[in-house]
């Protein structure tokens, strides 16, 4: 059994069941191209009438997009009536495939999942072969929304009575992800608001500082944070009600008072009993060896189930759950590390000191402990002299003779817990309500330090033009301009630098050689990017990528095919690189008032860049 169905067989199977036209979503561009090649080798040929229909549609598109005429796949598509559609293709070619699909000329399109978002061409059937997608460097499971976006392309309104989403297995499939995606509710969306430097400059250009907080409060981010804060505020109200019986007593702050007193008293008692046996390190540690705590042992790790003292020696002991589920006992002194990690567990009065359901959960967690866990910082205190404590107790605390003492003693544990809860909630609410504003402030400080803003948060002369650069890595670009890195620069070198800043893909490949001038400038850019690293993530700054753009701008006679031959990049990727470079250059062009020379250089680069296929689309 082959791991997945052969593409030609797949389309034949679909044709025979009247399930075409279909979109077949595959894991990679490579898989799409392989599928096309399989068709190229096959004997499949459409009836002449259908081939003519395809030719007619393409011929009409050629007037607007001349590059379609010379596309190497044109004749295959016409013969077999299927096509590939992915980011490695030129936009004009993708437009052609989309139009063919809309007009019903094709039986199938092999596409990557990037198609799912944005481009609209539907089909009768959608074939799903995978349950995860590559996102940055890792594969992640498709979300419910994503599955529905894929499957949703099936069934064209007005052209189909019913649509089909068909799953065919490959080694990359998890059936559960797909069925959940098909039957579930799409996920809720969350704000991804970030405060960027250009945002700050543009906000402060148009609004005085005292209005900014109110403007940030209008974001969806703050709206969602407020929602969360409101939930906590309701909880806080409840806590306040619960706190009512524990208001001021003879001491206003009796909770703290009792806490200190109790602590002092315990230390005293504790000292008398155990002083001889235990080191201060162990004593300090004991209060953290509570049920649910993860600890390190000479061999492996474990989760504390209970702490107790041995019968004869009164040694401190712990009962531990070890990975694999074994329950063991050992002296507390054998614990080598106390981790900053505790699990919830339901304690029980008898062996294994933990409720059965809770134990199962713990065993699972014990087996699944992260490799690294933070160690809990434990402060070892030199213990005060015993006489001192007795003294303190009598001198400093009114508690021993206070009439409220029994009540305080009884209520203290509950009251303290409530009060801590109140504090925690307060802090979280504050963070939710003001977090965005604080982030704005800390980024504003950077802009002040670098001289874009005055101490009063007004735009400096530099800030005035810098706010027009509204792209990723804006800080690097404006700093380069300030450092005069671009003075007297050639258009192809400027374009080369911009594309190395714009390009964020680290796929390797073969590329043309870079000129010495561009190489040395790129070194300077790298240096500056590193120094800005605390404020802005540095771009990849690939020299090979810069060289592609340098060639295209530097030699206006170079043809598109000639450029493609110089590198192993797919032409869709080269196109995207140049289109993005163009965007960056047009931002530089907006500086024509303050930096006429540079703006002019950018505009010359744009003029040369916009030729051939790069002229076909606006």
């Amino acid at each position, binding site marked *: 059994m082959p*791991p997945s169905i052969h593409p030609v067989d797949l389309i034949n199977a679909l044709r025979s069941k009247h*399930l075409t036209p279909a979109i077949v979503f595959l894991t990679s561009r490579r898989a799409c191209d392989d599928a096309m090649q399989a068709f190229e080798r096959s004997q499949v040929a459409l009836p002449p009438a259908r081939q003519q229909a395809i030719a007619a549609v393409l011929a009409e598109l050629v007037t607007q997009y001349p590059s379609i005429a010379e596309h190497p796949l044109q004749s295959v598509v016409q013969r077999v009536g299927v096509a590939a559609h992915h980011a490695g293709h030129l936009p004009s070619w993708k437009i052609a495939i989309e139009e063919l699909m809309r007009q019903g000329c094709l039986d199938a399109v092999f596409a990557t999942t990037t198609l799912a*978002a944005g481009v609209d061409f539907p089909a009768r059937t959608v074939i799903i072969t995978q349950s995860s997608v590559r996102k940055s460097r890792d594969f992640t499971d498709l979300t419910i929304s994503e599955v529905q976006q894929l499957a949703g392309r099936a069934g064209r*309104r007005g052209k189909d009575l019913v649509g089909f*989403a068909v799953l065919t297995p490959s080694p990359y499939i998890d059936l559960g992800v797909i069925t959940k995606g098909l039957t579930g509710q799409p996920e809720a969306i969350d704000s991804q608001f970030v405060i960027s430097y250009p945002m700050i400059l543009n906000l402060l250009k148009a609004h005085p500082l005292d209005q900014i907080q109110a403007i940030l409060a209008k974001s969806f981010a703050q709206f969602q944070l407020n929602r969360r804060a409101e939930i906590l505020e309701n909880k806080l109200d409840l806590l306040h009600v619960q706190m009512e019986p524990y208001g001021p007593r003879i001491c206003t702050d009796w909770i703290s008072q009792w806490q200190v007193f109790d602590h002092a008293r315990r230390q005293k008692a504790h000292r008398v009993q155990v002083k001889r046996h235990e080191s201060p390190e162990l004593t300090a540690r004991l209060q953290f060896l509570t049920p649910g705590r993860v600890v390190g042992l000479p061999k492996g790790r474990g989760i504390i189930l209970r702490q107790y003292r041995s019968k004869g020696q009164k040694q401190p002991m712990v009962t531990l759950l070890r990975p694999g589920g074994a329950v063991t006992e050992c002296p507390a002194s054998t614990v080598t590390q106390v981790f900053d990690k505790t699990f919830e567990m339901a304690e029980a009065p008898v062996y294994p000191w933990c409720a059965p359901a809770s134990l199962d959960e713990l065993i699972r967690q014990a087996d699944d402990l992260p490799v690294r866990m933070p160690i809990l910082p434990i402060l070892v205190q030199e213990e005060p002299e015993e006489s001192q404590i007795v003294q303190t107790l009598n001198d400093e605390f009114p508690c021993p003779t206070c009439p409220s003492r029994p009540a305080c003693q009884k209520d203290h544990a509950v009251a303290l817990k409530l009060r801590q809860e109140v504090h925690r909630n307060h802090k979280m609410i504050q963070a939710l309500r003001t977090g965005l504003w604080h982030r704005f402030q800390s980024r504003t400080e950077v802009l002040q330090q670098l001289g874009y803003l005055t101490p009063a948060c007004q735009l400096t002369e530099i800030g005035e033009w810098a706010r027009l650069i509204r792209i990723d890595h804006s800080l690097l670009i404006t700093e380069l301009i300030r450092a005069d890195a671009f003075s007297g620069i050639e258009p192809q070198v400027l374009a080369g630098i911009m594309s190395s800043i714009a390009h964020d893909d680290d796929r390797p490949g073969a590329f043309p050689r870079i000129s010495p001038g561009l190489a040395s400038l790129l070194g300077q850019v790298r240096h500056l990017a590193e120094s800005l690293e605390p404020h802005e993530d540095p771009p990849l700054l690939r020299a090979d990528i810069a060289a592609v753009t340098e060639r295209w701008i530097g030699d206006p006679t170079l043809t598109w095919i000639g450029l493609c031959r110089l590198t192993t990049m797919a032409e869709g990727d080269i196109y995207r690189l140049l289109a993005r470079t163009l965007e960056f250059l047009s931002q530089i062009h907006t500086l024509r008032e303050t930096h006429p020379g540079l703006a002019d250089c950018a505009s010359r680069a744009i003029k040369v860049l916009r030729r051939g296929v790069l002229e076909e689309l606006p």
Partner: protein
Amino acid sequence: MTTEELETLLEEQPVNRLHRLARGRIHRHFRLGKRRLIEALLRCTPENRPGLESDLQALMQEPLPAPPVAAKERRPAGPQPTRPGSPRSAHPVQAGSIESAEPATDLTSFLEGIGVPAPQPFVPDAWQEEAVARLTTGDVIVSVPTGSGKTYVALEATRRAIAADRTVIYTSPLKALSNTKFTEFSRLFGPDKVGILTGDRKDNAQAPLLIMTTEILRNLLYDAASGEIDVRLDTLGLVIMDESQYISDPERGVVWEETIIFCPAQAKLLLLSASIGNPQDVADWLTSIRPDPCHLIRHNRRTVPLRAGYLHPNGKLSPLFRSVGIPHGQGGALHPEAKRLFAQYEEETIRPRSR
């Protein structure tokens, strides 16, 4: 146990048992097929081999919850060489005997009704009409499934705005999509009525309908806020944001928020979105920051009914679920045939026939 013996034993195990064995041993084991899972198990455990073996023995004592393989593990444990290429008859799963009393659908009913509907005059759906109508009093968010006809709402709203001498801006997340819409809208409204703006080009920028990416609009709004008006925003009557579920895009989502926050008060906002989980939140947000209340249009009905199927690599087709349609919101009980075929797939892909 030698490595070969262990390998053979692993091969005989049903996949879900292997997954249980892999838990905590192999990162992201659930995305591996059976063959790769076995390889990973053998690779990752040279020093923990005894642990793996004893866990395997323990798991083999337990009955399995999943029915398609239930018949298997009553076999005596121990190495049993598989005959490569021999047909496997180890799955005597009785179709339909497991879950509910209701019989599972068959392929004939699953494939019934394929075809092209008779041409009908265009009649807008009630929700489409409502969306257009609601725009007269405030902003509108439309969150409906893919392919429902959101474009009609955009078109009709644009038509009305232009008729009332207002300008319209239509934004999409991708240049490619902008371009498609530019062609489509030019055909509908006439080329003189539609313009497109990109970073370096302004084609027909004085037209009443302007198409651009969301980033370009955001920049326009920033320029307008600082007094450098580029395109006439005072006559702006409607801003349409297509694919507005992009607001949750990790890199670019912020641009959608900025655009919405700075969208001129006199212009109405029309947000078109695929189905999302919390469109009401977005509507509430808009209501809280915009002059007029925002109306939410949402539904989850597919206009063209959707069915889900399973296609085996040998070309055999089966419904994926027990029901003809997709059982929304109910775990989704698999069709016994699809289940059997998939289990067979996982079993058979462990050894390519060529070996």
